[in-house]
């Protein structure tokens, strides 16, 4: 078994008994996609909802609207069928109360919303979700069974 680390604004795929991991999701969102027949797993760590408000050539893995589709394509090349994919998502926390600055307070929520819209557009159902609240999460996603495991500082570990 090997562990494949997915950094911020990054994505990757895994097969066999490999495990994808992304550390310390705060207001960012981790999107796990899984084809349970061919056992192909994919994980994307997005930072922002939408690439359209950024000029130049924005890094596509950074945004919900450009990263997830690329993850799907990468999984297809590994043998996954797009219409068989299911999603589990985590993150999008509100790390600071930020009273009086709602645009800052809502960054996590906006990310979760954008991820859900994009998954709906791609017709990928969300079968598990651990989002919002006010703490960081490390996410492990195992290719052998499609289990998403969430670890946080003081709240133990949960599997989805």
């Amino acid at each position, binding site marked *: 078994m090997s562990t494949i680390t997915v*950094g*911020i604004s990054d994505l990757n795929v895994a097969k066999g008994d490999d495990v994808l991991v992304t*550390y*310390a*999701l*705060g*207001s*960012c969102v981790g999107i796990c996609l899984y084809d349970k027949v061919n056992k192909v797993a994919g994980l994307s760590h997005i*930072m*922002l909802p939408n690439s359209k*408000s*950024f000029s130049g050539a924005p890094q596509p893995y*950074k945004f919900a609207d450009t990263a997830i589709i690329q993850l799907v394509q990468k999984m297809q090349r590994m043998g996954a069928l797009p219409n068989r994919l299911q999603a589990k998502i985590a993150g999008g*926390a509100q*790390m*600071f*109360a*930020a*009273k*009086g*600055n709602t*645009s*800052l307070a809502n*960054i996590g929520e906006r*990310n979760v919303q954008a991820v859900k819209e994009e998954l709906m557009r791609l017709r990928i159902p969300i079968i598990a979700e651990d989002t919002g609240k*006010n*703490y*960081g*999460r*490390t996410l492990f996603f195992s290719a052998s069974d499609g289990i998403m495991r969430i670890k*946080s*500082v*003081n709240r133990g570990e949960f599997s989805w």
Partner: protein
Amino acid sequence: MNNYENLNEIQLDALREIGNIGSGNAATALSVMLQEPIDIEVPVIRVLEYEQVIESLGGPEQLLVGLMLQLGGDVTGMMMFLLKQEFAHLVLQQLMGVDFPENGELDAMAGSAIQEVGNIMAGSFVNAIGDMTGLTIDISVPDLCVDMTGAILSAPAIYYANISDKIICIEDRIGNQNMKAGTHVLMIPEEDSLEKIMNSLGLV
């Protein structure tokens, strides 16, 4: 100047001087508050990517105390104090005689004590910038978050993604005669505010 990367060497030097004087002031204020001598080493000031900041603090999962302050007045943006556990421990010991809990769960009293320290240090830090530049800078009450470094830093990284994927990072080592602990101060002035600071120093 739409990106901190575009700062030239002279402007970076000015930022270093600001960080230096700001950190010195903050240490003096802390010393008064804790009623004991506080030493500070010459800070290292760099423009870093968020991931480099995270690495320099011990990696994404390292438990850290984060204080976020919003800047207002002539300079808008954000300032963050990132305190390592040892530093938080020193402060809590000195102010309340209690330990920093290993799991990071601060009770209300300890939380407000840390917030107050952040408030005092940030206030004296921005006053130093104010004195150098003639600008008026207000700070909000600090917002506290004790969690994994990567998760704490996601907030400024996302909120200011339209300004820069780099950040002005002031690495301090501060403490008393027995121990020194790292604290990082992150400065995220908004675009026109950074320009204002440079303008007021005659460096554009």
